[in-house]
């Protein structure tokens, strides 16, 4: 496949999920690091940057979930999953939900100007990063990026 053939790249079966997944992973991890920095330094710039990174992660997670579910339905015809595929599905959905919850906490605090961000969000964001890392590892294993025998 020609890497500059946009049509072929967009229509390639199962290619989109593998490409799109990098955006929420990178944006969320960057957002969490910035949120920790904001908490530690109390600088508004870090908090702003964290918010927009988390916003980007929450938005970009939507097409990732959709393309992942479509790949399951079309590539595997929705058959009952087991093993690594099932784990990837469950942890992938969990990751997306945690990303949306983390972003939701920031949105709520932003709308209510007087309300501070709850400290427990940092624990939730750390947990989300760990689950995202595990999901990504499984995904990489499925595609062969994370090693073959």
């Amino acid at each position: 496949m020609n890497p500059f053939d946009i049509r072929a790249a967009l229509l390639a079966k199962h290619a989109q999920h593998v490409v799109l997944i990098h955006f929420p992973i990178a944006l969320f991890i960057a957002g969490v690091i910035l949120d920790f920095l904001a908490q530690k330094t109390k600088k508004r710039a870090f908090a702003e940057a964290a918010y927009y990174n988390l916003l980007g992660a929450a938005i970009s997670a939507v097409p990732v979930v959709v393309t992942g579910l479509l790949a399951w339905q079309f590539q595997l015809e929705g058959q009952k999953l087991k093993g690594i595929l099932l784990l990837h599905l469950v942890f992938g959905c969990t990751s997306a939900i945690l990303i949306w919850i983390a972003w939701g906490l920031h949105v709520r605090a932003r709308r209510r100007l007087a309300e501070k961000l709850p400290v427990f969000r940092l624990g939730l964001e750390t947990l989300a990063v760990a689950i995202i890392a595990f999901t990504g590892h499984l995904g990489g294993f499925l595609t062969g990026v994370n090693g073959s025998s």
Partner: protein
Amino acid sequence: MRRSVFIASLMATAVMGLSGFVAEHKSFAASAQEKPASTAEVKIDNFVFGPAAITVPVGTTVTWINRDDIPHTVVSTEKVFKSKVLDTDEKFSYTFTKAGEYPYFCSIHPKMTGKVVVQ
């Protein structure tokens, strides 16, 4: 005397012929029973179908076995056959009853391709 020799030789010939027919029939029946059903095996390992292309006679049952740590599928490009997701050590078999070329691939890893040629 001559007549009895003639009859005896006729009978001997008949017995030999009959025994020969029976022996041949037995060996034919035995060979028909002993002839194993034609089978072939394709191993899936390290993201490769091995051998990638095999040639088999009509009626052969080809078995794919996943020796990889990663799940794979075996899907005919022309939608002739399709396996479930095969985890490690799981198998999928298909009997080819018509001559032709049957290209296939793994739907999880579409770069993994193979071909069965049935003659």
